[in-house]
């Protein structure tokens, strides 16, 4: 690591102010940022820890939707969202290992938008709304490709509002080394329609599989997906699998998620 200052604001307003400094960087769990700093791949002058901001923590029902504070850890979501949104709690329960789940936060994950992260699939498939210190962003407008989002410089994810589907399931196939998703599918069935989001697969990060959604809206059954394919040419190709393999897994994971919902 290089030298840096650390600030621990107690409110969103103070955090925003702190992030206005030159070369400031928000720290919210640090499951990606801390290894990056240790490898000397980033050199922020100030780290602004969001861990002490109570207004950014918690899991609660607000106006018929499930609100999760941006600073809420995966372990807390795993426990406290289990009744309201079991599909989401189950996703949180399968991120990383206990150490990761006790430090990593939903806001940190969404701000980073790793193409292989779990949460973006849930947020996109749920049609959730990302709340920041300055606005609300619909999930469909939030994700903007690998490690890119609609967030502006210094903008903080303060919370996420999840509409609650009738049923949902997250099906994950892990990359054997990192245990991030090699491909994972989040299928959420709402009264108004089905949403399917895929993470891990695409060079453009998390995406909605609209053909699968249309097919499932027509008939919510695994068999409805038969014959649907994605183009492997747009998919990540690396040591752990070709684009064609990932494209294939998108179908398998989506089908299994639908089967799990029943």
């Amino acid at each position, binding site marked *: 690591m290089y030298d840096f200052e650390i600030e621990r604001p107690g409110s969103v307003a103070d955090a925003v102010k702190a992030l206005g400094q030159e070369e400031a960087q928000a720290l919210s769990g640090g499951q990606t940022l801390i290894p990056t700093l240790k490898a000397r791949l980033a050199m922020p002058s100030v780290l602004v820890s969001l861990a002490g901001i109570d207004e950014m923590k918690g899991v609660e029902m607000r106006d018929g939707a499930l609100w999760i504070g941006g600073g809420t850890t995966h372990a807390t979501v795993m426990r406290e969202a289990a009744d309201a949104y079991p599909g989401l709690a189950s996703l949180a329960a399968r991120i990383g290992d206990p150490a990761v789940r006790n430090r990593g936060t939903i806001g940190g994950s969404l701000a980073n938008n790793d193409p292989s992260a779990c949460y973006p699939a849930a947020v996109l498939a749920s049609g959730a709304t990302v709340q920041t210190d300055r606005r609300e962003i619909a999930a469909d407008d939030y994700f903007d490709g690998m490690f890119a989002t609609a967030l502006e410089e210094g903008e903080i994810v303060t919370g996420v509002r999840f509409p609650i589907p009738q049923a949902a399931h997250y099906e994950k*196939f892990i990359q*054997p080394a*990192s245990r991030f998703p090699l491909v994972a599918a989040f299928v959420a069935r709402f009264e108004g329609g089905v949403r399917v989001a895929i993470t891990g697969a695409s060079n453009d990060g998390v995406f909605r599989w609209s053909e699968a959604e249309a097919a499932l809206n027509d008939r919510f059954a695994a068999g409805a997906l038969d014959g649907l394919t994605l183009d492997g040419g747009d998919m990540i190709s690396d040591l*752990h699998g070709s684009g064609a393999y990932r494209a294939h897994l998108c179908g*398998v994971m989506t089908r299994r998620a639908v089967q799990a919902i029943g």
Partner: protein
Amino acid sequence: MPKDIEPERGIGASSKRREDVRFLTGTGRYTDDINLRRQTHVFFLRSDVAHGRLTGVDTSAAEDMPGVLKIFTGADFAEIGGMPCGWQITDKHGQPMQEPKHPVLAHEKVRHVGEPIAAVVAETLAQARDAAEAIVVDIDELPAVVNMKDAVKEGAPKVHDDLTSNLCYDWGFVEENKAAVNKAFEEAAHVTTLELVNNRLVANPMEPRVAIGDYNRADGEHTLYTTSQNPHVIRLLMGAFVLGIPEHKLRVVAPDVGGGFGTKIFHYQEEAFCTFAAKAVGRPVKWTSSRSEAFMSDAHGRDHVTKIELALDADNNFTALRTDTYANMGAYLSTFAPSVPTWLHGTLMAGNYKTPLIYVNVKAVFTNTVPVDAYRGAGRPEATYQLERLIDKAAHELKVDPIKLRRQNFVTEFPYATPVAVEYDTGDYNATMDKLEEIADHAGFEARRKESEAKGKLRGFGVNCYIEACGIAPSNLVGQLGARAGLYESATVRVNATGGLVVMTGSHSHGQGHETSFAQVVADMIGIDENMVEIVHGDTSKVPMGMGTYGSRSLAVGGSAMVRATEKVIAKAKKIASHLLEASEGDIELKDGAFSVAGTDKSVAWGDVTLAAYVPHNYPLEEIEPGLEETAFYDPSNFTYPAGAYACEVELDPETGHVSIERFTAADDFGNVVNPMIVTGQVHGGLAQGIGQALLENCAYDEDGQLLSASYMDYAMPRASDLPFYDVDHSCQTPCTHNPLGVKGCGEAGAIGSPPAVVNAVLDAMRSGGKDVGHIDMPVSPARVWEAMNG
């Protein structure tokens, strides 16, 4: 005969590992736990290109950085010896191998990603690292060679300009048999051919490497604390060949070491650097490898590309075997690298079978990659994998049961001289196969397969046998084979006045449990409690010159030295006892910690005899000296040959290609067993590494020589959830005929014996799904399985 009953103590008892108290309570003392007064820290600036001409290393700006004491570059070591290689191979034309210079710090050229270019010694590690970033390195990049077959083509870029090519050696074994082997192939009723890759691995011990150099100006003594499996070997190699320090002025200490798996055998540049720099800066110099550094500086393992062929007669008897292997040496020759694909590999190609004619060809090749050397099994896993995959393939081609084909060709009479220069002293391969079939419930497999199929999964059953040459090694034999060292072992047994013993062994424990099992042996011989025996290892100032731990040699060779030294102690103690008991020496018997006169009730306790040795008031001083301390050096007359049969049962998800191991069974013959619990643990660990190689681990380079799997984000280590509960049995015991304990060694068996069973099982599962692909390379990742099934 199987042995099922365990004694409560001594040899054969599952005594709890005494060292685990400190390992499990955080009170071990590892090299990184050592911090010396006025200690400094070194950071190595490493090459980020695989191949290039080093045209400039400008340290001027870095030297002025805060905390910097001294910066070293290759020029500082130009007049100093390079890293030595401990084994010389003679090629098939009778010529010595090509042996390149291996500098402590890169000089004139860089030859792999991770090669150290400069070393910054500073007050703190952060300061050293900051300063390293201020060093300006100019490298004219050259095309890299990564693929071995490309590396030996005419006109390929040369890793070492002063060598004639990238070919280290072209080894033929046994060259005289070649014509007869070829003739047998011409006459064969059936020939099975297989081409395969033995994937490159990174050892990844839990504790990364650490080195601390210290120098005492007052007495001129150097001390190196290091994470080594063999501190005396490091003292000899570094003192004599690199730095020119006589052994009496050089102490090497390897305290608690957190796993080695072979990669901590070798003498590394960082050890030589810290020892050298401590004198140059006048203060201790410490280096602790980061995990990222370990990936690109610890010697890697395996990395063979092989074509192997088996000739069979019309009755399915093996008549000849022929192999053609390319073995990656990496950019330099690591300490024992040349021996791994030759004498540790070619000599095992007979396996458990009486194939009369064998010819092995190995081309060792330099590439722009991290040096490759011994890793758990070292050569023997490569031999086993080729042979056991090939036999399975032959069985399917011939439509015979793979177990039946193996049994038909087993060696059944011992001693058995193979056509590849070794003589198996003892074994019973049908016994371990019988045991395997029983505990793996082979008979129940079809029912389990149906259960899997009902879930939409494919199930496969795979077996393999293995044999290894352990108890390394008879010095006169390995000397003829090119070893530049002896491979005996030493022990000093020091008896204290009050009867307790300290045993100083040249073996080194880095997870094997020697402190427990060695004490069991000595205590058993005397008939005293194990807690009266303390095992000391890992410090050249305490232990007689010993060769260390690798090749499953510790109990077979180190334990035998300890037995010999204890026998000497007992012989002398009997003389003292005979004096005290006023009886003739020949009538003295030692049992349960007491000396008695045969046929009488006269006896004297062990402690009374040991006290007499050090308080010799009533003592035969005219016949023997006071004191009770003996040293023995044991040089084995042959290797030992642990062998066994393994079975793997997998469930394969045809939609994703994911393979899960549902059952794994190991039936081993390790000869006599001192501590069954420790042996079981050793097999468990070996299996984890073998299954890791088969399913998960893959050290991959791109064509420019960049390491693609340079962290745990991409290098998949096996985890508990990847592994089944094992069924491990070592009740089949044919004791070694030539060492005093009748032991054979167990440390590497699991890693040697498991990869072919896994791959054979995966292929069996694929066949049951209607897909016969003939072969699939390791690691059998989901992507590879899916591609094979859909190719």
